[in-house]
């Protein structure tokens, strides 16, 4: 059996020859992520009682939000529930101005929007969420914020609509 050799010089690859296989909206990969015991408690407190509950490490005394079973630095199991917030200090933030595909929805994200890391009063770690950017000049590090709750809550971090500046 003879094999014909085809050198790349003989056949120039033109743009139209280069095919792409698209794997888009038909290719959904659904997941049922377990929030875990600690996460479930936190989400339930938000949904039912509109409050935030972190967990404290018995060794280093740090309060973690979101809560989890093990304090990484101490490698110790945590059990003590601690209520934090609802007010929080903005520790850092940015304003997202570029659109991208949200992997959760498959849709292009609408921009611009405010994205911040909030430290609840009483917590030692930060909590991510959105904030409105009607007046960008007021957004500063160490500004005080509080959550705005949705009417209909499902036990998700989106039960909070966003965080707004505390007007004292």
């Amino acid at each position, binding site marked *: 059996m003879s094999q014909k050799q085809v050198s790349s010089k003989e056949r120039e690859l033109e743009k139209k020859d280069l095919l792409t296989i698209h794997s888009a909206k038909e290719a959904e990969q659904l997941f049922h992520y377990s929030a875990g015991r600690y996460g479930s408690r936190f989400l339930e407190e938000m949904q039912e009682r509109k409050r935030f509950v972190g967990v404290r490490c018995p060794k280093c005394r740090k309060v973690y939000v979101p809560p989890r079973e093990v304090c990484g630095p101490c490698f110790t199991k945590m059990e003590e529930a601690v209520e934090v917030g609802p007010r929080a200090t903005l520790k*850092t933030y940015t304003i997202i101005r570029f659109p991208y595909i949200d992997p959760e929805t498959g849709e292009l994200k609408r921009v611009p929007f405010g*994205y911040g890391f909030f430290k609840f009063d009483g917590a030692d770690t930060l909590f991510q969420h959105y904030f409105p950017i009607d007046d960008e000049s007021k957004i500063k590090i160490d500004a005080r914020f509080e959550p705005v709750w949705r009417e209909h809550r499902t036990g*998700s971090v989106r039960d909070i609509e966003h965080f707004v500046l505390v007007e004292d």
Partner: protein
Amino acid sequence: MARRAAIVATGQTHHRSIRRDVNGQELINEAVMRCLEEGELTIDDIDAVLIGNMDHFEGINYVDCWSVDGSGGFMKPTIKLTTGGTTGSTLGIAGYHLVASGAFDRVLVIGWEKNSESDTTGAINTAFDAIWDRPFFAGAIAGLAVMAQTYAHLYGATARDAARVAVRDRHHACLNPYAHLRKETSIEEVLASPMLADPVCLLDMCPRTDGACAVVYAAEGIAEKMCSQPAWVHAVASRHMYSYISDADTGTGTMISMERASAELYKKLHIKEPRKKIDVIEMYQPFSWAGLMWIEDMGLCKKGEGPKLVWDGATDLGGEIPINPSGGVVATNPIGATGLIRCAEVALQIMGKAGDRQVPDVNLAIATGFGGCAWTDLLAYGKKKPT
């Protein structure tokens, strides 16, 4: 140390935005062939293959299995490693351990990414916890922007300071035939480029790239026969410290993983003045601001003094401690390869094969990796065999 090991050959593709002319396997093979050619080797000389990329960019499961024909792993031990952005440096570390352990004499290590095949930010978002972090996260750009915001707030660094880093790296890239973006820029041009996420502008940020990189590690006794100047591994250190992006030291202005990994590395190297002892650094610097922040966290200068070091020209080619003579990550970023490209570039510097971007008299060089939740990998390579 059980055995010493060195990089004896490297290969890279000419990195580009979109490589429509090759599928992933072919892209991998390009880098592999170049590397083998460089080292005057055939695939038969290779005992094992390590490969990595960041899965969701190409949407292929079990990439080591899928790419075996292109990687050369056919009927060989083949393993995949992936740690996100740090994948390339994680691979660089793994290749070293596999040879140093005595398991193999010659290991081919490959990092690759065909970033054009997906929405980069969308894919990066899937790296983060689905319940707590993912709903809000806006990819690497957001994660890095918030770091920069804190740093600027604490130390007064400005967008101009960051732009100076971008200008440096984009200038260096023009000397690197493999770099993706090879276009000089100016401070003004950087500042005028579209704002992606405050304070990060388009020209501050790395691109996304299609590319691959391969290196061969060999054991002492063999490396010397394969290469006139092997790049010997002197020390490695890693810190992948956080699981939630919201835990990460985002609000502190310091990247703790870099601090700690550097401390470990310098201890192993017995050096107290890194700025004096290190001859060149290829830093996984995904955006310009990192070139200010992380040189401080690496101990090259005090906290807050990064801008000064950069403005003084110390980190330019020809300066005291050149950083990213290859143009670094803001010029080229095939994510799974990026960390390994740092290792390859540093190896080229030690071998004296870095062409127009060569730093003279390189004895000790550092390659860094970044990714995940502000994770760090570090590798130190030297001209001489470590004692």
